[in-house]
């Protein structure tokens, strides 16, 4: 393909579109199941429950330290399946490309998406591209739907959570949120921080065999506090978190302090929050800490009787309520 930028002709169903699909998408994502000439993919499926999910991706900028919209589109959907206890198998991919996007950038992003899919053990089995007019999209929007398989008998869910259960997090929180914010260069801040965007499948697999595992979720939008809030609301129990135990990187704390953000509300894209029976908490922690992405895993609190809210216990013995996120956080004045 010799074009430099996406034009509306790349979406007209004709030669340009075929070249775009063959030269960019099929070249990176090609696999026996992805027949670009078929209207639907035939998916082999072994025993087990089918798990199905979908997610959309609009991140700005399209590329940021530690990832890009392509890898994110894989991790987001793969992680939703993984925390539900499934092994992700197939993805579909919808790309909404804005006229004027440099083809070299699209190529980088699709290549990154392909790498992420390979790492996570999923194949893109179906796809579609559309081109929208300049000004009608943020360069590139992606949507992925995912199918995974789960062994029957795995009962995960908030309804299984009991008072006394431990709350675990697989690593430092807020990296993705701050990395993307720094990449926007909106605040003139620079840093070495990379997004934590990754498949959490190794993490979820490592604890799936524990009988005391109750529930897992990846704390994306709204962060750790939002997941804790959802658990608290659904169970009617209080989520008591120990501030000193929650892993937060120094760079994340520093930016949060400067701009008035709260790291507990910032998005992660490669972490897992798990609720585990206290008896299995140590085993879960050990399993996570043995993995490269789980070295900083920590037991950060417990579910307990009391008013259904999220209470953060400070190192000096104070408490603070982590409320449900209302507005988008805004930088503060001083």
């Amino acid at each position, binding site marked *: 393909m010799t074009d430099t930028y996406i034009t509306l002709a790349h979406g007209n169903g004709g030669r340009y579109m075929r070249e775009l699909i063959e030269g960019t998408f099929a070249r990176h994502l090609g696999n026996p199941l992805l027949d670009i000439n078929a209207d639907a993919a035939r998916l082999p499926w072994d025993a087990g429950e089918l798990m199905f999910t979908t997610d959309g991706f609009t991140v700005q900028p399209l590329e940021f330290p530690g990832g890009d919209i392509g890898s994110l589109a894989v991790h987001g959907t793969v992680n939703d399946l993984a925390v539900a206890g499934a092994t992700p198998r197939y993805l579909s991919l919808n790309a909404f490309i804005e006229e004027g996007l440099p083809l070299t950038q699209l190529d980088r992003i699709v290549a990154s998406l392909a790498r992420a899919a390979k790492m996570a053990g999923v194949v893109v089995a179906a796809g579609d591209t559309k081109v929208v007019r300049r000004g009608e999209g943020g360069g590139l929007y992606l949507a992925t739907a995912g199918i995974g398989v789960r062994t029957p008998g795995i009962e995960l869910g908030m309804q299984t959570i009991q008072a006394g259960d431990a709350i675990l997090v697989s690593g430092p929180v807020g990296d993705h949120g701050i990395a993307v914010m720094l990449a926007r260069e909106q*605040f003139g801040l620079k840093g070495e921080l990379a997004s934590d965007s990754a498949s959490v499948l190794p993490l979820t697999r490592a604890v799936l065999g524990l009988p005391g595992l109750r529930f897992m979720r990846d704390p994306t939008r709204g962060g750790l506090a939002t997941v804790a809030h959802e658990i608290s609301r659904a169970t009617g129990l209080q989520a008591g978190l120990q501030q000193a135990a929650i892993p937060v990187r120094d760079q994340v704390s520093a930016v949060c302090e400067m701009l008035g953000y709260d790291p507990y509300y910032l998005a992660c894209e490669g972490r897992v929050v798990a609720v585990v029976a206290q008896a299995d908490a140590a085993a879960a922690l050990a399993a996570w800490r043995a993995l490269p992405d789980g070295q900083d895993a920590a037991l950060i609190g417990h579910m307990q009787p009391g008013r259904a809210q999220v209470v953060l216990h400070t190192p000096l013995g104070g*408490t*603070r*309520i982590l409320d449900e996120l209302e507005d988008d956080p*805004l930088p*503060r*004045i*001083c």
Partner: protein
Amino acid sequence: MSHDAAYWLQKIRALDLPSRIKIMNVCGGHERSITLAGLRGALPGNIELIPGPGCPVCVCPEEDVYQATQLALNEKIILVAFGDMLRVPVNVPKGEPRSLDAARAAGADIRPIASPTEAVQIARANPDIPVVFFAAGFETTTAPVAAMLAAGVPPNLSVLLSGRLTWPAVAMLLDAGKPGFDALIAPGHVATVMGADEWAFVPARHGLPAAVAGFTPESLLAATYSVLRQLLAERPFLDNCYPELVRPGGNVSARRQLAQVMDVVDANWRGVGVIPASGFGIKPALAAHDARLRFPAYDDPARKRAGEMPPGCDCARVVLGKIYPDHCRLYGRACTPRTPIGPCMVSDEGACRIWWASGIREAKVA
């Protein structure tokens, strides 16, 4: 700071203190650290920490926020402002945009920024559109605005300045007698810019202990210990418990830039009134960059409830440290972060917002 919070707490607990001591802080950042670390609960019960005039968003005159909102709605401009200002409510008839946020939703081009350099970037990127920088803040925020003006800005950039000095508000409280507090924790960031010496009048003229503090629990507890010791020894002086950053004369170049482009003027504080020599005004030589001179005054003094606090709102008394946030009748009832009535429930620096975030959900009044 070589000692940790537990060390200072132990030292404070070992003091033989009178029955009730009230220590005021005058910085939203201090109040935030105190509340979110749970210092009130950790200190002996007879030590009260009361938030004072420390929230620049809260004291920004209603008229100025109204002016900014109307400018953005009526003129073909880009209005940039610090994010905190966007949700501050003003008094308008029902159905009209009552904050910058609402004006933005109604179509005005309003962009939150975090530093003056962003204002300059936006002005450079849009040379044909006037850009108005609504700059409300204390010395800490006004100094970078002064630096920006001193360095020279694009011709299409002007500033709607609502800068305030903190110490005159404390001086006013002390001059009025019965200040309602026994000691002062002076603001660390303000002192970094303007110098610790600005606060020497507190012990020298009024005989009250004072200490400049940083923003960690350790630094705040060290300052608390210092003022308690001063009280017990009856030897008030100005202590500096934030020596890492605070010098007696402050940041010399920041002060020079402030003096170069701004005059100190009498200024209105929301709900409080005019405090002499407590505000910054842009010097006449820079009139071309003064939005108050470049654009029509939309502030209609005949407007219903212009400049007034909302009915029942006690923000002004909270700001002056006369009452605690949960002593306001609206706190947690009509006024919550979701439906803020007064500015103290809007800003992250506002005492009501901070107390709410810490989990205090009910007013203490009947």
